[in-house]
């Protein structure tokens, strides 16, 4: 059965979280809510990448006594998406902090967090 495997369930969860995050970004009007939706989107993409790298019945790419050193290529999952996601998470927190700083500056300017109040760039 295709559905009841770990990686397929993670893929479904990641896809639904991605759609929910996108929906939040385009439908919410509060800036902080939009940033929260962005962080949900971020988490979902990380989850999708790790789930794509998973291979069933294999173990983590760390070679110690429970992994045969000579047969490592047949016992470990893909280490490449994990290294990618590791970098992406740290950059994600930087982006979130930067977005929050801009939100704070906008709030100082207009003392409102509603996106409808900012008309200066509308044309």
């Amino acid at each position, binding site marked *: 059965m295709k559905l009841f495997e770990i990686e397929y369930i993670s893929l479904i969860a990641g896809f639904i979280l991605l759609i929910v995050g996108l929906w939040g970004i385009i439908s919410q009007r509060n800036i902080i809510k939009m940033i929260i939706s962005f962080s949900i989107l971020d988490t979902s993409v990380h989850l999708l990448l790790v789930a794509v790298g998973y291979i069933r019945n294999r*173990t*983590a790419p*760390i070679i*110690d006594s*429970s992994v045969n050193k000579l047969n490592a290529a047949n016992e470990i999952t893909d280490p490449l998406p994990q290294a990618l996601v590791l970098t992406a998470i740290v950059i994600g927190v930087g982006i979130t902090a930067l977005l929050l700083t801009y939100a704070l500056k906008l709030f100082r300017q207009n003392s409102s967090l509603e996106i409808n109040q900012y008309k200066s760039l509308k044309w």
Partner: protein
Amino acid sequence: MANTLFTIAMLIVGLSFLLVTVRFLLGPSVVDRVVALDVLTISSIGLIVLLAHFLDRVIYVDVSIVYAILSFIGVIVIAKYLERSL
């Protein structure tokens, strides 16, 4: 025998996830939800240690150590925010 016991333990952890989620959704104030976050963290620590047994890798316990030592810092920040002294 041991595996059966650990399976039952895992089911109990899953039940605690469900109950705490219900508390989070119902909880009238923010404080209830902060406590729910804390309890979820502690249940996750238990779940990760059980997983380290089931998946047969000792190194996963490292993750639960990090959880255990960091879980309360976020709660402290929220508590300071709620008592207006951040």
